[in-house]
């Protein structure tokens, strides 16, 4: 892929990212912080966005791609409206996290990394949220849910869906 040939649309999202880069790009080693912001804006980091970041920061595309794929936080695929993130860390594991994961996969009909057909939920796993006292733990977007059991897990997912349809 040649940077020059990638078409980058001129829209509000890119302008917002450009503004951030202009303000923060002078800091040494800004790449990771810029990618954080880009993902916040776009929801994920498709090749165009990575090219844009590379161009603006004057970095080789390979370096941007290398960083994006190294860190768990960065996603290259679009995701659903909500991310369900289940912790499989040791403290959650002893408290039955793998059972919760099974329940999640069954209820949503997807495997880890997948997104439901209606683009509502994406299922993901984590190593530890630092909320281990509440194990087993999952996060739905920024919200932490602890002391899970299968019923409670299903209830949380269904409540969120219902809340959405009511609105």
């Amino acid at each position, binding site marked *: 892929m040649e940077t020059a040939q990638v078409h980058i649309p001129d829209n509000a999202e890119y302008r917002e990212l450009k503004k951030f880069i202009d303000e923060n790009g002078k800091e*040494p*080693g*800004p*790449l*990771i*912080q810029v*990618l*954080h912001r880009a993902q916040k804006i776009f929801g994920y980091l498709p090749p165009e966005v990575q090219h844009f970041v590379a161009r603006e920061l004057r970095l080789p595309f390979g*370096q941007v791609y*290398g*960083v994006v794929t*190294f*860190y*768990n*936080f*960065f996603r290259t695929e679009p995701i659903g409206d909500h991310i369900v993130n289940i912790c*499989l*860390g*040791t*403290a959650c*594991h*002893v*408290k039955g996290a793998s059972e919760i994961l099974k329940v999640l996969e069954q209820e949503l009909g997807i495997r880890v990394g997948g997104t439901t057909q209606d683009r509502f939920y994406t299922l993901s796993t*984590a*190593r*530890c*949220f*630092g*909320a*281990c*006292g*509440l*194990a087993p733990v999952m996060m739905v977007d*920024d919200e*932490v*849910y*602890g*002391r899970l059991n299968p019923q409670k897990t299903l209830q949380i997912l269904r409540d969120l869906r219902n809340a959405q349809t009511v609105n």
Partner: protein
Amino acid sequence: MSIYRTHILVPVDEGTVQAGVFEVKRRLEQKITEQGLGNEVKVVESGTVGIVGKGVILVVYPERMYYTNVRPGDVSLIVEEHLLKGRIPPTLKYASLDIQGGLKSLHNTGLTREQKRVVLDKSWKMSPEDIREVLATGGYKAVEKIFTEKMTPEAVIDLIKQSGLRGRGGAGFPTGLKWEATRKAAGDQKYIICNADEGEPGTFKDRLILEGDPHKLIEAMVIGGYAIGATKGYIYVRGEYGLSIQRMQQAIDQAREYSLLGPSVLETGFAFDLQIKIGAGAYICGDETALIESLEGKRGNPRIKPPYPVTNGLWQMPTAVNNVETLANIPEIVNRGAAWFRTMGTDKCSGTKVFTILGHVEQPGLIEVEMGTPLREIIFAYGGGVAGGKKFKAALLGGASGVFLPEKLLDVHMDFESLKENKAVLGSGAVLVMNEATSIPDMLFSILKFYAHETCGQCAPCRIGTHQLLQLAWKLREGQGRVEDIDTMLNLAETMQRTSLCPLGQSVVAPVKSAIDNFRDEFERAAGHSEIS
């Protein structure tokens, strides 16, 4: 500031937020105003008290009464009975630390048992969001002391050396020596970095310091910067810690306003400023050299050591990397002296240690106690013992790179030296308790899965070895393993220890070897299934 007769702490953390702490707080404030107690009773939103899974918690000072599982409907009773009439409503669940005024201590065991708090001394007594409260409770006194008493950087380093403070990030390296080496290293620009990546599963101590007392960390970094000759500091916080990042940033902004950070700290001419950098979810970035790479905006591949960061750190400049908990000790050492610090802990490991108690215990949570406290006391006296009357089987100390300790080692003292004698490590201070029903091969499988996912892929022994180990562990767990596989696993892990590039690959041997050495029969039984075929 007015004097209040009573303070009510409202600890805000993930658990209490989930349990509805803000509604309780709102009602509490409303009820207090209604009863005309507004000038006598102050409600303070604090960091966590370390008790988790007990719903909304209120702590009433000076009585040190803990109310747990508080529901909004309980608030009237607490205000009318306790605050107004001084009677404890008997229907509510509570525990008291002190025996005072006829109140009986309900808990000799559990997280409300007496602790030794140094790094967490204040985080639950004041609002971390208001620098005026921090200043009023002795915050930034240590920085002031250094400047008013005209302590030289060398004197500060000497003090830290004498205190015997050792790094709490896992390796236990003497902090004073690290600072001295950074100070002496040649370089125009030096850096101090706070390692707040806290990636070890089962650990959340640093988070509670970041959220509960962010100003203490700033104070420590100003002191560290002054001692090593750095004008710039970074706090590398893991991306998952949203509240920590927010509170830390707010604290930095306030500190700048009060001239505690900036071009001339307290008008002394000493320039020092701090910046937060947010991690992106890679365990290996907790390693100091990988962290530095990541700070530079690159993949978090660890560097080959030596050279060490103290001479060739961030941008190849001299850099001191310190853990959050390590730094949080600094202000009190400056305030109260090295001799005071040495009265706590053991000869070779002075001070306190924060432990997170997890897994199958009655009361999961966090405590700060003296270095060298026996493991048994931590699990049984503080954690309340194994939950549900089950029997103890093992404790995993120090997270994924930790060791499995069997029951016969329960009396080990929790300090770097004693643990080393027992082939264990203190690590991050996570104590994960497993009951008799836990399968050790299954636990090891979970840990190896973690390693296979988190290996950075830079060197072959670790990249390939972690996956080989995972496969063998999977076969054992699924009843498809052979007895020989057990020794193959040991062999692999030991080879990785010798040949891996960084401490991640080198440390796999700890959980593998301790699991197999101490629970070999379980692995053999798991392997036994397939012998017939």
